[in-house]
């Protein structure tokens, strides 16, 4: 299933459910109660950042021309295809942190043990089976959604069209009144 994760900022209530679900999805047991006892503890790949009273979940944008892929000296980061995930091959990663330095969003982190870089893998194992990414499923307010670029454009166009339509109607009404 192709797509990217998008955020509707106004809908985010800052509950951190996306972080929790992400960590569980990337645990060995995939079960919350068991996962909290795992060593190393599973880490989330999505982070909630607070700015000026708003909270914004951030995760890898899976850039089409990803700087992290370009900068990686070991070929450890791979773009799987257009509108597909950028993933880190942990076995090749040497933990040089160049990817962290070049990421415009700060969504690449070093694993707690400092050995490899970590970031969102777009829940490949789920999306391959037609399931939505764990964070999207977990979001109780619908702030996170999983869409292709085309679907997103369409959605935005419809909003813009509605706006135009309403403006035109208002203008007509004004003319009639005059």
């Amino acid at each position, binding site marked *: 299933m192709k797509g990217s994760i998008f955020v509707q900022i106004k809908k985010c209530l800052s*509950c*951190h*459910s996306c*972080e*929790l*679900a992400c*960590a*569980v999805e990337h645990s060995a047991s995939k079960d*919350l*109660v068991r*996962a*909290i*006892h795992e060593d190393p*503890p*599973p*880490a*989330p790949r999505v982070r909630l950042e607070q700015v000026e009273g708003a909270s914004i979940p951030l995760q890898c944008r899976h850039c089409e021309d990803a700087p992290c892929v370009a900068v990686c000296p070991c070929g450890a980061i791979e773009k799987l295809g257009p509108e597909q995930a950028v993933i880190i091959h942990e076995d090749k990663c040497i933990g040089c942190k160049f990817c962290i330095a070049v990421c415009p969003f700060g969504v690449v982190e070093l694993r*707690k043990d400092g050995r490899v870089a970590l970031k969102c893998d777009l829940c490949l194992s789920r999306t391959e089976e037609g399931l939505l990414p764990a964070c999207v*499923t*977990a979001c*109780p307010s619908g702030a996170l959604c999983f869409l292709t670029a085309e679907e997103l454009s369409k959605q935005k166009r419809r909003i813009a069209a509605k706006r135009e339509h309403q403006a035109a109607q208002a203008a007509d009404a004004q003319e009639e009144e005059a």
Partner: protein
Amino acid sequence: MSSKDKNISIDPASEQMLRSEATQDLELTWDRYQAMQPQCGYGQLGVCCKICAMGPCRIDPFGNGPQKGVCGATADIIAARNLARMIAAGTAAHSDHGRDTVHALLSAASDPNSDYKVTDGKKVRALAQEWGVDIQGKSKEELAKEVAEMSFAEFGQQHGELKFAQRAPEEQKNRWRENGVMPRGIDREVVELMHRTTMGVDSDFKSIIGQGIRASLADGWGGSMIATELSDILFGRPNPIKSTVNLGILKADEVNILVHGHEPTLSEMLVAATQDPEMIKLAKSKGAEGITLAGICCTANEILMRHGVPIAGNFLQQELALATGAVDAMIVDVQCVMPALGELAKRFHTKLISTSPKAKVPFANHIEFDESKALDIAKQIIREAIENFPNRKGKSTCIPDIRENMVAGFTAESVFEFLGGHYRPSYRPLNEGIITGRLRGAAAIVGCNNPRITHDYGHVTMTKELLANDVLVVTTGCTAIADAKAGLLNSGEALKYCGKGLKEICEAVGIPPVLHLGACVDISRVLTILCNILDQGGLGVGISDLPAAGAAPEWMSEKAVAIGFYVVASGVYTVLGQALPVEGAKELTQYLCEDIEDVYGGKFAFEPDPIEGAHLILDHIDRKRSDLKLSPVLYPVPYAPKTVAEAAAAS
């Protein structure tokens, strides 16, 4: 799971309802449960705190984010405070029910015009004597008045010890006194628990749990026991009685009236009102053949125990009962009444009538119950139901033709009389059964329904597994209703599920292998029975010595948390099908599931699989048998006791 999924219930009547046209466009519990998925992990783990306005705070269970709330509370402190407040709510619920019972008894004893009468003179005399009242030459009303006033005082008492707590074995009372958890007054322990868990008071999780235990003991050995014992005095001690259970008790050609909730004060009057010839005449004048009164949840259990009134279903059948379209009125009081009922009832001709001044429900007609006009109000309600019967005409109904026979009405006293015979009441045969190994032990399976688990599956599966392994089961509340629907309270039918030893005992004594002890508030009867078994002798000195355990495979209510704590603190090993919301607090979980046993003799285990849960209980019973130097179980059983080596390996 949504209501359209398969395997929502193992109960054939509920399954039939869920598959039928009647429920296809209704929004039911399972649909709302599905819409709520995934549920919040912080809440599940107990590490979210909203006690003060510096929060809400949450602890990151993976250790990446904050490990302390704004005030500095750790996961253990936060989860302990949250849990303690659940105990406070549960204790408050049972005890407030008890308070209403005392009020009704006082009215019966002091007002000659009251619709209530003091029914059980023998029991009031015994209780007055137990509490040191001079009983010479006093009528049952005079004694009931004294007992009622003394019971009221238990709620407001500020120091000393609760009277019913004195029933506990010395060994257990000493544990409570040594740890400073002997309950002083019922209301006081709830208030102190709320105080201790507010911002910036008790910050030691074991100390918080200690007060939680004190409040829970004020429930089990206080409010709940008052509710049970005084209900017996007021309405009569139950005796074994036959009845029927499941949605099939509704009748197409009669006025169907369901009571739902927990308190017996109004429902006792409704029983009387439905038997009134004037009401039956009115029903016939409206074209009905008669009046069927039945119940849901524990109000149902209360009037089942004393009058054999049939039961329509347990907690997760409250909506399905309305969906039959055949209910002319559902009368609700307090506890476990889903707010969803009001909107659901609007889809049918059914009148939903709320009655408690404490509980109003959206879209329900409110006819407030007043004990001083009890029978008049009961008749008014029954009249409303009868007058609604003609509105059912021409509407489609769906009543599953499924019902089961059962025997209910067991109490601490009637078990006694059953076992030893009326002339020599004694627990001796029960203790002998355990000592010889015909009975491996005893278990109390209790609790609610919860859409997390297939409806009734936890109760019935665990009960059957224990019966097969020669464990006598006692039950209350929604578990009792689940087991009854599965035929396990049917003295003949149920024996086929029993191991050889249990079957021999049941046949010799003439009891079903699962004994229905009443409503969830009547788990206090289990405490009394455990004390009686110990008094009989031969099975140790403390409750924790007994080869016995408790379980709540499908619990959901805060009341179940209070019950869980008072039984654990009374020395009973307790298996919960749904973990307490503490698993994000590692030290607290370790304390509740292990270390607390050294302090009080009981501990919790969390096990969602009812077969695995039954095996935990059997392992525990076997350990206790071995500690008592009892021979292993007499006959071969499917889940054989572990050998010494196996037991050592398992621990």
